[in-house]
């Protein structure tokens, strides 16, 4: 191969690179890669690759009086990317132009170009309407060019001259088309990868956005159903607070007036996260409120609420709930514990600790659940701390949990504080303990304190 020929080939490859770049970056081309084979897009590709085929003919490199060219390249790529119509269309343009030029190889060469496009389209269809990939495309181009040479031998007359043409141009034709195909296929497959990555990223971002919206909705639902103020009580100090986790759970507390002297107190934790938990929380809260109205029996309320919730609970949903009625006159707390963390009662005089446990089960788990009712007196200075597992299961980054003992200790040490002061103190301690670790669960606290009247 002479130096001039090599230069000419490099020159042509450069042109192909630029053409490949420009063609693959057109919006029509991108749309076709996305499978949008509209009539307009197909027509555009026919024109582009038809023109590229014509360019292949006129830019041919002369080898021993015969021209080696990349005329078949355009139709092949058109077919591989845009299907049989694009391949055939581009082939007809390129092949037609070649036919007009005439010459003794005119007929086989133009037929070969038309068929190159048709074959490309067939490969596209066989590959389930997707681009065949770099290796497949290059092998395909070698096959098509070999077939082109075969056609020249079969059709051109005289045979001896045809044989000479094939001998001289066969290898350069196959090689230059394969190189051209390599360049195009490389760019196309890069483009496909790029678009897939972008698609994945877009999907991921959309998913993230959806999740964020969902969390916000869940939080708004949850917050809008928490009482805004604590009702005033005679002889008792009451405070409550709920810190929703990032992935909102379904903690709630509620105050339900029962009679002049009686106030219902609820603290609960719905299993699950996000919107389903928030909705289940709203449902549970409504069921408890409806059942509690003017009913002095906490066990009856719990049983009724459980039956209502169980009827609606989807598999696995449940809510642990502690319900109590504070009688401000009798200074008693009648309570029922439906599977909730037992509240702590710290006796103001003796410092003794009692856990408010009863025989009960989380609501929504089974129909006709037995709910035991108990009663405890609340003396002056006594503290009742209601909490959810977000308090005791708050963990530091080493997975150590805040735990009940630390909670008891904090309560004992700060029993002089007001109810609101103690709520703040405990949440502060819990957050300080789990500092650095993300808050996994809602932290909800309610403190009731028997006021000293002396």
């Amino acid at each position, binding site marked *: 191969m002479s130096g001039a020929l090599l230069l000419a080939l490099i020159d042509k490859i450069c042109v192909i690179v630029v053409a490949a770049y420009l063609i693959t970056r057109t919006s029509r081309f991108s749309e076709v890669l996305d499978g949008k084979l509209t009539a307009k897009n197909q027509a555009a590709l026919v024109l582009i690759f038809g023109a590229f085929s014509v360019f292949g003919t006129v830019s041919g490199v002369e080898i021993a009086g015969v021209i080696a060219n990349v005329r078949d390249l355009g139709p092949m790529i058109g077919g591989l990317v845009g299907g049989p119509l694009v391949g055939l269309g581009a082939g007809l343009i390129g092949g037609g132009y070649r036919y007009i030029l005439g010459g003794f190889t005119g007929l086989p060469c133009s037929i070969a170009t038309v068929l190159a496009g048709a074959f490309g389209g067939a490969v596209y269809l066989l590959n389930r309407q997707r681009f065949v990939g770099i290796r497949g495309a290059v092998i395909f181009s070698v096959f098509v060019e070999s077939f082109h040479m075969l056609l020249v031998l079969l059709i051109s007359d005289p045979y001896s001259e045809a044989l000479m043409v094939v001998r001289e141009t066969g290898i350069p034709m196959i090689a230059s088309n394969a190189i051209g195909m390599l360049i195009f296929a490389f760019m196309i497959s890069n483009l496909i990868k790029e678009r897939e990555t972008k698609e994945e990223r877009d999907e991921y971002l959309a998913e993230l956005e959806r999740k964020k919206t969902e969390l916000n909705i869940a939080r708004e639902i949850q917050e809008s159903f928490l009482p805004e103020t604590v009702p005033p009580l005679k002889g008792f100090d009451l405070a409550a607070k709920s810190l929703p986790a990032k*992935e909102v759970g379904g903690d709630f507390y509620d105050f339900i007036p029962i009679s002049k002297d009686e106030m219902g107190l609820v603290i609960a*934790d719905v*299993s*699950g*996260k996000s919107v389903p938990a928030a909705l289940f929380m709203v449902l549970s809260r409504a069921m408890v409120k409806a059942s509690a109205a003017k009913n002095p029996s906490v066990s009856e309320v719990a049983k009724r609420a459980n039956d209502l919730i169980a009827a609606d609970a989807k*598999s*696995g*949903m*449940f809510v*642990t709930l502690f319900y109590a009625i504070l009688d401000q006159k009798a200074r008693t707390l009648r309570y029922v514990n*439906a*599977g*909730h*963390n*037992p509240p702590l009662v710290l006796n103001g005089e003796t410092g003794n600790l009692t856990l408010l446990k009863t*025989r*009960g*089960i*989380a609501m929504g*788990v*089974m129909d006709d*659940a037995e709910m035991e009712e108990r009663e405890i007196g609340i003396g002056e200075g006594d503290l009742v701390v209601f909490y959810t*597992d977000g308090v005791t*299961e708050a963990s530091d980054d080493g*997975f150590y949990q805040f735990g009940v003992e630390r909670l008891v200790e904090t309560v004992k040490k700060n029993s002089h504080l007001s109810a609101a002061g103690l709520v703040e103190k405990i949440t502060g301690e819990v957050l300080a303990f789990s500092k650095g670790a993300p808050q*996994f*669960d809602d932290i909800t606290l309610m403190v009731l304190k028997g006021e000293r009247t002396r």
Partner: protein
Amino acid sequence: MKIDDKSSGDVKIVSPAGRLDASSSEELKARMEGLIGDGCRKMVLNFDGVEYISSSGLRVMLASLKQLRKTGGDLKLASLKPYVRETFEIAGFTQLFEIYDGEDEAVAEFGK
């Protein structure tokens, strides 16, 4: 989390190891649902390797129990560590599940 499962006759024994928190509970849920989907009706959950269970873990147990009992099957629990047993007790779930000291006893109970 590491979750082993094996068969003893027609009873599947599932043994998770580690902490059953929100994310590992999802893994366990997928595994148990898979086994139930494959036709398992009798399941024993061996808690020997579980130090901690959160309410998400309880939810997975409850969902599987409901699913199995609906089709005449059951889920029995074995080898609960003190913390895990306490979590089941607080929620009242000890009334709901049959709990055994060891895996063999739970499996044997299915044979009765």
